């Protein structure tokens, strides 16, 4: 079966294509087809898991060349190792539950078929991401899950909030992807390959200088920051709750957001090579976890509480993995890798359960606001108990799944005091906000009688999914019980297999923290012996900060979004006025220059031409003066000419070197005579000659 593992992710793609092109109009068949394919994928995943167990975790790899140019090539392929096998089962299990649940939840939606098409496309992308055998392919599917997340958050796109949220999610995660792209560039430039096996071997052999490796590892981690909603890119996940609740459960709680954690686990060989990168990972993880927990305790929207809880739990996993990388880099043993991946699995089940149950609650009361709920325990006979199982599991109560995995996370921090204390504080807060939610929703008096009256248990398809997941939320952790010789830790590991030692002290402290969190919630929201309002009023700035998510959105708007948009508008103006202005200005200058030349042409060049004509004309006018048409005048000229020539002949022959004075005088006299004769008005009998 393992050699056919590519079918696991291609089947949902087939479902997507079939629904889009053929089954779109037959809602029931479309949904049925989609569910059938994911169930087949699920069966195959289980099969692959057992085969992998049977091979003792030996890896299987197959690939083909995607593109080859020069000596550069990229490949697509699948890699099945224990981590992959576990993730396959997790994704297909949650995927199948969510699809079956959606039958009831999305019933009557006009875009029912499309919803299943998108879910199938998501499962294709997510399974492809899990199966990838190299960084190039994981990046491809990484982006594709981003696309499906975009499509599904914006599923009800006519709601403005949904339209805003899907864009925000896509762009925010893409900012993280910038980092991972840079990371990949560095890796491929220095190592020449993106194949996990080859690359990690080269890294292990020291092919990449330490400083560069740190940058590459942090770059890759940036992708995880975006996808897994880690600080400072965590802002998109709560908004993503605008999508339908099954989507929140599948994509924004159990699988896609865990992809970041998966990526870090997958590329652990990079992090163990760089203690600096690892400690960055751990610090980001713990900051995120704490930050999200502090926000979750004051929220009133049931889905947002769960969203922040998701962010917080993902921070846990990231922190554990980071600490593993750090400890390994400095030569210590650490259960961090095991803790992170184990918690990834258990969290997927109990968080999917919590979301689906929340969806069922919302389905029943038609509101997200927990202040309008209350006393629903008696109304929702299946939803309420399953939700509380999930809440117990996430709080880490023995012997539920969350207990075992959280215990390992606490164990990971045991040698890092600051992390240890913070982890316990977060555990306390987690238990508190989850049970604050439970007490407000299920117990006490109904806050809104109308909603309470109309509340009803959800259809069977939804309840069944809840029950399956509730069972998993209880039992999934048992594969990691420390006394098992062939448990989770012996199967999924990095480097050498790690065999955990159960520490009663840690387990005891963690349990006390969880119970005290639940206890405080009980006192504040059930017994009401401690007034939440009074505490809120006492620490009002803190309360407001937490309630407003520490103003991250507002700050990003002021320091990032608005300046970028302003800059974009400025650039546009610059383009029109500056660059195009220069172009048009050049054209304008050319026009001015040609105008100037036209002026020169008209007044100087052509002026010279016309001017010479004008001079000739004037000369002609002058000459015209002697053109009188009178015989006497002509006789006079002739006589004068003869006399003048005579004088000139005489003077030029006999008087040397002297101006021909007499000749000049004669000519001048003749001209004078002629002019005078012309100017003196004449008495003529006939009509005037010219006017």
């Amino acid at each position, binding site marked *: 079966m393992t050699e056919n593992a590519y079918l696991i992710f291609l089947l949902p793609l087939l479902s997507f294509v079939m629904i889009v092109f053929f089954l779109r109009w037959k809602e029931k068949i479309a949904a049925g087809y989609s569910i059938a394919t994911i169930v087949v994928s699920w069966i195959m995943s289980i099969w692959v898991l057992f085969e992998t167990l049977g091979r003792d975790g030996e890896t299987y790899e197959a690939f083909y060349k995607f593109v080859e140019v020069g000596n550069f090539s990229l490949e697509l392929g699948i890699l099945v190792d224990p981590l992959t096998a576990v993730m396959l089962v997790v994704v297909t299990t949650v995927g199948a539950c969510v699809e079956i649940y959606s039958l009831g939840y999305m019933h009557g939606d006009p875009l029912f078929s499309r919803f299943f098409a998108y879910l199938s496309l998501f499962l294709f992308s997510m399974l492809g991401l899990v199966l990838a055998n190299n960084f190039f392919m994981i990046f491809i599917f990484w982006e*594709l899950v981003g696309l499906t997340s975009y499509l599904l958050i914006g599923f009800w796109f*006519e709601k403005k909030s949904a339209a805003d949220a899907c864009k925000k999610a896509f762009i925010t995660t893409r900012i993280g992807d910038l980092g991972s792209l840079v990371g990949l560039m560095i890796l491929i430039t220095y190592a020449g390959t993106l194949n996990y096996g080859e690359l990690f071997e080269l890294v292990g052999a020291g092919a990449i200088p330490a400083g560069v490796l740190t940058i590459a590892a942090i770059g890759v981690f940036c992708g995880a920051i975006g996808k897994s909603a880690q600080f400072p890119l965590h802002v998109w996940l709560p908004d993503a709750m605008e999508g339908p609740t099954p989507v929140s459960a599948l994509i924004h709680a159990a699988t896609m957001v865990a992809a970041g954690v998966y990526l870090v686990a997958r590329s652990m060989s990079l992090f163990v090579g760089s203690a600096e990168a690892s400690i960055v990972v751990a610090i980001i993880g713990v900051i995120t976890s704490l930050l999200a927990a502090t926000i979750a305790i004051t929220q009133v929207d049931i889905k947002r509480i769960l969203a922040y809880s998701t962010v917080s739990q993902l921070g846990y996993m990231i922190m554990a993995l980071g600490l593993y990388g750090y400890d390994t880099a400095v030569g210590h043993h650490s259960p961090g890798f095991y803790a992170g991946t184990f918690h990834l699995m258990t969290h997927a089940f109990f968080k999917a359960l919590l979301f689906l149950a929340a969806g069922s609650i919302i389905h029943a009361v038609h509101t997200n606001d927990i202040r309008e709920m209350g006393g629903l325990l008696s109304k929702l006979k299946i939803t309420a108990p399953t939700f509380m199982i999930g809440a117990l599991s996430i709080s880490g109560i023995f012997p539920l799944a969350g207990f075992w995995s959280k215990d390992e996370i606490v164990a990971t921090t045991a040698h890092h005091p600051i992390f240890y204390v913070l982890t316990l504080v977060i555990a306390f807060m987690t238990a508190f906000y989850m049970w604050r939610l439970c007490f407000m929703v299920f117990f006490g008096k109904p806050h809104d009688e109308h909603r309470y009256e109309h509340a009803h248990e959800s259809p069977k398809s939804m309840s069944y999914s809840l029950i399956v997941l509730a069972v998993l939320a209880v039992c999934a952790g048992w594969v990691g019980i420390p006394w098992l010789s062939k448990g989770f830790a012996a199967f999924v590991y990095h480097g050498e297999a790690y065999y955990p030692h159960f520490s009663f002290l840690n387990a005891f402290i963690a349990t006390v923290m969880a119970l005290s969190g639940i206890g405080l919630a009980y006192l504040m929201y059930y017994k009401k012996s401690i007034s939440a309002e009074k505490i809120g009023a006492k620490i009002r700035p803190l309360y407001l900060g937490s309630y407003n998510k520490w103003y991250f959105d507002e700050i990003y708007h002021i320091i990032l979004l608005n300046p970028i948009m302003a800059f974009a508008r400025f650039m546009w103006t610059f383009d029109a006025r500056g660059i195009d202005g220069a172009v048009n200005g050049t054209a304008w200058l050319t026009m001015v220059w040609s105008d100037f030349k036209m002026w020169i042409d008209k007044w100087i060049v052509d002026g010279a031409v016309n001017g010479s004509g004008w001079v000739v004309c004037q000369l002609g006018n002058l000459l015209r003066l002697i053109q009188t048409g009178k015989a006497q005048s002509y006789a006079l000229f002739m006589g004068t000419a003869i006399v003048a020539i005579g004088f000139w002949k005489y003077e030029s022959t006999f008087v040397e070197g002297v101006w021909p004075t007499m000749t000049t005088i004669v000519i001048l006299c003749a001209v004078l005579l002629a002019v005078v004769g012309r100017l003196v008005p004449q008495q003529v009998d006939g009509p005037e000659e010219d006017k």
Partner: protein
Amino acid sequence: MDFPILSSLVFFPIIGMVAVMLLPKNAFGAIRWTAVGFSLPPLVISAWLVFDYFVNFAAMGTMAYMEGPFDWIPSLNVQYLMGADGISVPMLALTGLLSTISLIASFGIKERVKEYFAFFLLLEAGMMGVFCALDFFLFYVFWEIMLVPMYFLIGIWGGPRKEYAAIKFFLYTLFGSIFMLVAILVMYFTSEPHSLNMLTLIDHGPTLSHTLQIVCFSFFFVAFAIKVPVWPFHTWLPVAHVVAPTAVSVILAGVLLKMGTYAMLRVNWPMFPEALRTLGFWIAILGVIGIIYGALVSLAQKDLKKLVAYSSVSHMGYCMLALGAFSSVTAIAGCMFQMVSHGLITGALFLLVGVLYDRAHTREIAAFGGLGSKLPIYTGIMVFFSMAALGLPGMSGFVSEFMIFVGAFGALNKVLVGISIIGVVLGAAYMLRMVQHIFLGEFNLARWGDLTDINARELVTVVPLIILTLVIGIYPKPLANLMNGTLEHLVGLMSR
């Protein structure tokens, strides 16, 4: 003599143009179908070329299908010389495809139909010629001949301020051509015997003095950069796009811009390796500025068509970045992929903008909203191409961007390439902003209640582009193999 394959690519449209001109003025149907009919042989032939070149020549990357040299103007040693290799064949196929698609998309033209289709076929002939001419004189003739129909297509059938746009386009390009002419003349007079044959001049170029190489390189570069357009020579582009009829925009973005980058790869880059070493880095910087700048300006656009036009500036910036990293085959291959991919994706986007404009008579992004519920198929296709434009994996744009980044990262300053990657986020931002404002949100029933979804004819124009975008995105290997031999040869020349 064998059948003159490449010449037929040029002459079928020209015969078609004559045929269209002989038809009666009002026989609209006959004119349209004649035009489409005459664009089909080039389409089929160019598609066959891709296949044939792949099978017979791709491994070596040799120049094939040579026609000539035939003496044309013997006293000047001007020859008729055509040939095609791994970088021209994909461009020829792209031209063939987009020409037919654009002709079909032009069926909505109602005035002066005959002239329109005649001009369009002349345009196709010119584009085909540019991609297979190997003699500078011939190349220059084809390069210039295209300006004429383009000028009229924008100037007659364009929107508001069409004269301004047409003249701007024409003069700007002509301005660049002068530099090219000077450079060609320098090459001609310095070669002995005087030659205009590009293939022999490629060996002549490196023998020039350093200064002369730089001058010639820069002159060619200005001519080609205006066509690409490389920042800061880009401002004619949005102006021309906004007024041009839909089909003309498709050709403009899909083919004309690629002529610039193609010419750089064919002429500039291999001919002056020394100049390239000096200036390559600065060209990459221009590319990166183009990427970021184009994306930012797109982000601020209010007009849908202008947004797509500026996104072209950004996308062609990737090509320039790749060309700056000339020592890497990967980057140059990425550049070729980007040229093909941008032709398909942006061509489709312009078609789709036209579809919406035909119905709504406005392109103002803010005027719409929530069209997703009213026009589901149109929305689906538009979102598809928006995703393709922002470089989503599985589509052609991703392959090209990834190859460019990888190639450039290895060959150029890493910080520079790191900055260029920001373009990926900005690309997502302006595309998704557009999608949100037009297709998501509340639907204005009163204003857009009678909009109809995309029709069959429009689908016919878009579907081939969808298929190719996906095929290249999912299985890019054949296209890479088609070009690989030629690119290795060219990169060898560039790195002399």
